[in-house]
């Protein structure tokens, strides 16, 4: 079964939880910039964590459905509607044949992730359904969606008819901080990077006290930041080494780059810090003009926060299963 893309919006692509196993060949992780948001949306519609959904950048996405499906979305402060009815973030909604789902540009944040029961059925390329927009492979023909595209949906084994009754929008929902991740006060927690000690003390304190602005040449590879210049004490050539989404690297111009999901696999710029995994959802919402600040935490704290989130998510899944039985 299929869905018709009546309007593809500014930039919408098929994404799952990312592509692993080919990093040593230079293939980025990719996937949803906020794979947690997609995972939460997937859980709400009864999909597996890594089912492919749609990443909509800055709205305006309009889909028409051919059959009955559950849909859910998480992300920036968008507005979504099934026909004329609001579908709030972190809720599941029922669509039936000829229903229209509309997502409008967010008032805060930049991205939203939409899950559809059954998932988006595109071929698996190098172990993932994600679109690699730079490499032009995966997803729908290796490209962003266009107006008029038809996307295939996988089979869903949900017994919607039995459990859903006359309900249109679920009364239950995901925890608010997971459903709506655009935060007016964007503070990203960091741990120190390999080259922290090689930065001037002024740069170290600037990073955790000053505010940085996201510049317009930011994209899915990274958010480029403008602020006080972060000076390096020991310049000199570094050999390229592994980087990851969340790495904050500083080129010789002193302007930090916060790497995101589509970042290159290796880099030769000094790494001053890494945004912790539980804060990548906030990083994924950054948009040119936004201001962002950083706060240092210990590695142990970062890993504890992540473990807590994973435990919360496991409980969330168990709770949801009651609504699907």
């Amino acid at each position, binding site marked *: 079964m299929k869905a018709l893309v009546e309007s593809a919006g500014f930039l919408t692509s098929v994404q799952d939880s990312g592509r692993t196993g080919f990093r040593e060949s*230079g*293939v980025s992780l990719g996937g949803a910039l906020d794979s947690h948001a997609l995972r939460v949306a997937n859980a709400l519609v009864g999909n597996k964590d890594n089912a492919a959904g749609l990443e909509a950048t800055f709205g305006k996405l309009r889909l028409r459905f051919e059959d009955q499906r559950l849909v859910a979305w998480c992300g920036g402060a968008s507005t979504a509607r099934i026909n004329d009815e609001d579908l709030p973030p972190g809720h599941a909604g029922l669509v039936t044949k000829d229903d229209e789902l509309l997502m409008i540009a967010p008032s805060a944040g930049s991205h939203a992730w939409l899950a559809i029961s059954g998932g988006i059925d595109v071929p698996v390329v190098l172990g993932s359904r994600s679109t690699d927009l730079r*490499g032009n492979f995966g997803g729908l023909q290796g490209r962003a969606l266009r107006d008029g595209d038809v996307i295939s949906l996988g089979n869903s084994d949900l017994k919607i008819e039995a459990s859903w009754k006359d309900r249109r929008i679920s009364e239950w929902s995901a925890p608010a901080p997971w459903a709506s991740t655009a935060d007016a006060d964007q503070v990203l927690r960091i741990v120190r990077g390999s080259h922290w000690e090689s930065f001037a003390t002024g740069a170290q304190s600037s990073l955790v006290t000053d505010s940085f602005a996201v510049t317009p040449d930011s994209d899915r590879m990274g958010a480029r930041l403008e602020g006080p210049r972060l000076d390096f004490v020991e310049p000199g050539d570094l050999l*390229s*080494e592994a*980087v990851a989404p969340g790495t904050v690297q500083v080129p010789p111009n002193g302007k930090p780059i916060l790497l995101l999901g589509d970042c290159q696999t*290796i880099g030769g710029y000094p790494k001053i810090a890494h945004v912790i*995994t539980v804060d990548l959802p906030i990083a994924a919402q950054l948009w040119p003009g936004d201001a962002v600040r950083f706060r240092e935490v210990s590695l142990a704290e970062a890993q504890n926060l992540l473990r807590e989130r994973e435990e919360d998510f496991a409980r969330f899944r168990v709770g949801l299963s009651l609504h699907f039985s």
Partner: protein
Amino acid sequence: MRIEPLGDSALLLRVVEEFHPEQSLDAVLRAARRIELAAIPGVIELAPAYTTIGVFFDPARIVDYDELKTSIERALQRNLEPARPRAGEESIIDVPVCYEAEFAPDLAEVARHANLPEEEIVARHAAGTYRVTCVGFTPGFPYLSGLPAELATPRRANPRKEIPAGAVAIGGTQTGIYPRKSPGGWHIIGRTPLQLFDVERESPALFSAGDHVRFRKISRDEFERLAQ
């Protein structure tokens, strides 16, 4: 050897301090092989490059960071067979390159910088044996060591917005090949008809870290024939 955190879901193994295209790279590739063979639960993938290996793990499965470090250290100490590097120790990959003017917009600048005739740049570039030190930047891009010192040319002050697929280029002391159309700041001195990265192939990237590479000068006609 040092192990450092790389954020909260990866770590960086500094295998050796100084880079050498043969000995130190072999040590890195051997270490990567040993970690792979140890199949440590929760380790997702490795990213070897020059003197380091990025080890990416699932933090939901690896609860104790120090325990992971210990597992890695133990894996490195085990004297497993094969203790050979993973890739291309004996094999040499032959890369046909057409160095004709149409494909070599920066050959003149490299020649000027080296103070050598253009033909000499081509002859020396094609005479060398190179080694893939890592694959990255874009999928399938091989960074090659072994460039004759006199051919080293600093990167362009203004990177090009678009470099064609197959462009063979010099950047600093390294040479490399652009797998697909992309921006880049290296000096382009030729083009290969080979497909460096193809998701349809069983092994999508033509090169792996550790492979040895030789360039072979071909004519424009041969380029066209091979490109078919």
